[in-house]
């Protein structure tokens, strides 16, 4: 309690808009006992729409400041305080590596600082909409996080990286930037840059490569981007949600635990971005989203490179990254897609694997050849035309492809495929003996964007 308030105090006093008085302890603004979280209510999207439903209310700069208070200063000597707070709350990125944010910042600072801060807002997961929700409803939280990172790194250069088709998000970000500009906030010089509408555009090495003048495709990184990023300079690349959390941690200090992750619950014809509450189980989050999960069904967790599990195994698991690790799963990009028992998980997975194969950057042989080969075999499994040795060949291809790309795209495809064969093992046997189940004729649950 006291630690939390002392930490909050330190930050409230570091607000640049209110220069400290001679006795900067005297009229201390009472620290807010609890700061609101990232989003206060679920946000609905269509199954492919990238625009939040009209019922959701966006924060302009005035309501942002009224809700969260002003942004503390992270420049100069304050940088270390913020890094220490980020370390204390153990904030990690939402990428597969769960990399500690504090460690990334220390690495960049040890490499000399300067360089660029990138808000990675190119949400590649077709089933996820959490970044779109955050950027459209709470753009100033993300921009605060970006400004804090830039101050800590000692740079003014910041980039918001978007997909070309993220119109509603771009409008929200540009409007928020204009508001900040009008208020005289010139902490960072922000550029909004768009990449192609592709699954891999938001992959971290793709972002660095594109912003260094190359194509928006992954490459083999031999040094972390915090050391050798855009133009060979230290680069802090963070997902929109991570930046928004940084903005909250900076205000609260390290004594307050992080809020639970933002999840996107996938239902028929809609996706509901739902902020989990601390201590809540996955079953409770899904129930609150309004999507009905079949107790006998299954769920795809994380994203299209994620994990299928029986719903009964996860519904009582707390919605945190740590709680899912022992199950061999990750909340990853936060996708939670419950599938009913009468729907066909093999058909869903086969369509997603086709999409992932088509989305390969086609740069690395094992991914270029391996994913289509796996996809062809899984099509046969879904269609109930499983030949002798097909399942063994599929597992061999999966083993050969795993870990062999410059990025983790093939690894995700392998994780998806293996978890489907495990979770839907009974369906595989049924497809093998009786042909495809009636579920294959159901319309797809998981959204499948066109790949160009």
């Amino acid at each position: 309690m006291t630690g939390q308030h002392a930490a909050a105090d330190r930050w409230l006093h570091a607000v640049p808009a209110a220069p400290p008085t001679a006795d900067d302890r005297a009229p201390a603004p009472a620290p807010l006992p609890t700061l609101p979280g990232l989003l206060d209510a679920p946000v609905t999207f269509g199954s492919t729409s990238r625009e939040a439903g009209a019922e959701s209310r966006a924060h302009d700069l005035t309501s942002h400041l009224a809700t969260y208070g002003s942004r503390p200063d992270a420049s100069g000597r304050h940088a270390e305080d913020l890094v220490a707070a980020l370390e204390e709350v153990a904030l990690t990125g939402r990428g597969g590596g769960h990399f500690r944010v504090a460690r990334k910042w220390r690495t960049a600072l040890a490499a000399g600082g300067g360089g660029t801060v990138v808000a990675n807002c190119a949400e590649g997961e077709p089933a996820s909409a959490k970044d779109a929700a955050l950027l459209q409803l709470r753009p100033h939280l993300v921009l605060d996080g970006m400004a804090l990172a830039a101050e800590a790194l000692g740079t003014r250069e910041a980039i918001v990286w978007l997909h070309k088709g993220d119109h509603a998000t771009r409008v929200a970000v540009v409007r928020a930037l204009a508001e900040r500009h009008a208020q005289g906030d010139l902490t960072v010089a922000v550029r909004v840059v768009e990449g192609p509408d592709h699954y891999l555009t938001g992959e971290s090495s793709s972002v660095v490569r594109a912003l260094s003048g190359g194509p928006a495709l992954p490459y083999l990184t031999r040094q972390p981007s915090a050391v050798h990023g855009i133009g060979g300079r230290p680069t802090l690349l963070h997902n929109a949600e991570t930046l928004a959390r940084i903005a909250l941690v900076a205000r609260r200090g390290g004594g307050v635990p992080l809020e639970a992750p933002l999840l996107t619950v996938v239902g028929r014809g809609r996706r509901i971005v739902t902020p989990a509450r601390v201590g809540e189980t996955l079953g409770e989050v899904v129930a609150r989203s309004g999507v009905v999960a079949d107790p006998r069904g299954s769920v795809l967790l994380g994203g299209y490179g994620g994990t299928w599990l029986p719903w009964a195994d996860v519904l009582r698991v707390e919605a945190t990254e740590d709680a899912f690790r022992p199950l061999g799963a990750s909340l990853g990009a936060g996708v939670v897609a419950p599938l009913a028992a009468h729907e066909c998980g093999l058909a869903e997975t086969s369509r997603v694997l086709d999409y992932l194969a088509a989305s390969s950057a086609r740069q690395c042989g094992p991914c270029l050849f391996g994913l289509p080969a796996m996809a062809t075999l899984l099509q046969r499994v879904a269609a109930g035309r499983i030949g002798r040795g097909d399942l063994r060949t599929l597992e061999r291809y999966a083993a050969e492809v795993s870990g062999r790309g410059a990025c983790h795209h093939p690894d995700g495809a392998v994780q998806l495929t293996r978890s489907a064969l495990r979770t839907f093992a009974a369906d595989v046997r049924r497809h093998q003996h009786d042909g495809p189940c009636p579920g294959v004729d159901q319309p797809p649950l998981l959204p499948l964007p066109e790949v160009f």
Partner: protein
Amino acid sequence: MFGKSKHQEQEQLRVDPLACDGIGICAHLAAGIVTVDSWGYPILPTRPLARGDRRSAAAAVSACPRRALFIEPVRR
């Protein structure tokens, strides 16, 4: 077993999969270290190079027509 190499930096044979075209010379020159997958692309060991394998690994690195192979210290 690794007592002798304790103070020596361990090295690993790696490939840049973007540069690799699966020509396969490495699998001949460094047979026993490099195998190929179903499509002819090299599969490299994930463990550090044994001292006796250093020479053939280096031969594969210098013979690669795509300059895709390299030897680097094991990352911790």
